[in-house]
Every structure is written in C-alpha cells, then in structure tokens.
C-alpha cells in the first residue's frame, strides 16, 4: 500500500535529540497530539507504552515502529522521526535505533494499519535505505526517499 499517502511532510522530524526509547514515545505522543489528530497526549502515550509491553516495536535494522490503534482516530496517520544519534530501543536484534516511524490508526479499520505495517516491514528491511533516511537533511528528502522506495515496489 502507498504509505506516503498517510505521511504529511510536516509530520517528518529530522535529527531529533532524543536519547531514550521512553523519551521517544513520550515526545511522539506529544507531537502527534499537537498535530491535530484529535486525541489527547495521555491516551496516545498510554497506547504506545501498552503496545511496547506486548513486544518491542524495535523491529531490527535500526528502526523503531511504535504504533497504536486509538478510538477516535480517523484513518491512518504516519510520523517519521530521524534521531540525532542511535539510541537503545529493546530491538529484536538488540541494535540501537536511528529511525522511528510512528503509525496511528483507527481500531475499526485495522486492515489499514496492517497494510501500512507490512509496507514498512518490507521497505525497512533494506539497511542502506534506512541509512539514507537517517542521513537525509530535510523533510522533503525523507518524503522523497520513502515515495521512491514505494514506487520501486509498485513498478
């Protein structure tokens, strides 16, 4: 599926000076709440931490994909955060994380989130691609890289 359709350029954050996994989740819940998604930060935060308790969203390859299905969210919303430096994320491969992609969806349409997670799982398996995301200097560059990666699959 076309993930970039759910990613607004203003929801891309470059080289954020976050230092811990909890700090990332806390900060992400704050920026998502402030982005006008219509859900209070506390609800988002709670769902993100609840999901991490099931299993870490550090899926390996230096990527974290914290996500949550929250009552009241319409559709699907993606947020991309590149980190200033690698941070521990309890990842499945025990390696630190440099890129975080947050997904927030409607629990009534879980298939949308499933499709998006599958797309992310596929494109983020490419180690060089993750490095290129991390090294990107602008939001536009991150958006373009993701779009191009998705288009390669489509073609």
């Amino acid at each position: 599926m076309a993930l970039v359709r759910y990613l607004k350029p203003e929801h891309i954050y470059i080289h954020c000076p976050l230092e811990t996994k909890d700090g990332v989740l806390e900060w992400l819940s704050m920026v998502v709440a402030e982005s006008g998604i219509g859900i209070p930060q506390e609800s988002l935060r709670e769902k993100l931490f609840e999901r991490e308790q099931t299993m870490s969203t550090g899926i390996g390859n230096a990527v974290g994909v914290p996500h949550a299905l929250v009552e009241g969210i319409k559709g699907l919303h993606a947020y991309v955060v590149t980190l200033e430096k690698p941070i521990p994320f309890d990842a499945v491969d025990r390696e630190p994380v440099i890129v975080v992609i947050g997904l927030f969806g409607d629990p009534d349409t879980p298939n949308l989130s499933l499709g998006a997670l599958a797309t992310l799982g596929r494109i983020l398996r490419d180690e060089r691609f993750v490095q290129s995301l991390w090294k990107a200097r602008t939001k536009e560059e991150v958006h373009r890289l993701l779009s191009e990666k998705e288009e390669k699959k489509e073609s």
Partner: protein
Amino acid sequence: MWLLVYILNGDRYLTEVLEELLEIGVTGASILDSVGMLHFLSQEIPIFAGFRSILKGTKPYNKIVISVIGDEQRLEQALATIDRTVGGIANGKRGILFSLPLEHLISPETKPLPG
C-alpha cells in the same frame, strides 16, 4: 462436482458439523489443521505483535473441512446444513464457507483415465 470448504475458527461445532454432513449423505471429508494469517503474523513477526489484542477471544487455530460433492442438490443441502448447525455463519465468528466447481477428479471410485 464441487469442492466444499468450511474454515472454522477453533473446533467448537466441528463434531456437530461432521455428524450433520453424514446424516445428509456427505460421507467423505478431510479435516485439516490451520492457523489464520493474522494469528501467525502477530505471534511470529514482531511488527504485528500489537494485533494480538484484536484476536483476544478467538482460537489460535482453525479446522478446515473439505469434501468433494458430486451433485448440486447435495451441495446446496450441505451448505445450508453447515450454516444452520453453527448458528448462522453471517451472524458471528463461525468461520467462512464456500464451494468451488471442480474440473477433474481422480479417485478410487472414478473410472481410469482413457489411454
């Protein structure tokens, strides 16, 4: 000639379904164990682990009943029987039921192929 396929979550109703099929003359079927895609992904692939909560209350395995049915009337009867036995497939999480037309069948009960 048709292939009847009933994918049932868990094994509740399985015995009843098989007994009812026998009663209407469907005397041959195979029962396969399977697992649903979302169950598999949520258990095996970390990125999908969050979907475990959606699956709460469902069984982690399915039973698949497959049967070759020769005549259309019996097929219709079998479909209706299964649906009634499980209390209406459309009404709840009782699995999915479908049939497929079969082009070829080779079995001990069929005539050998020519040549």
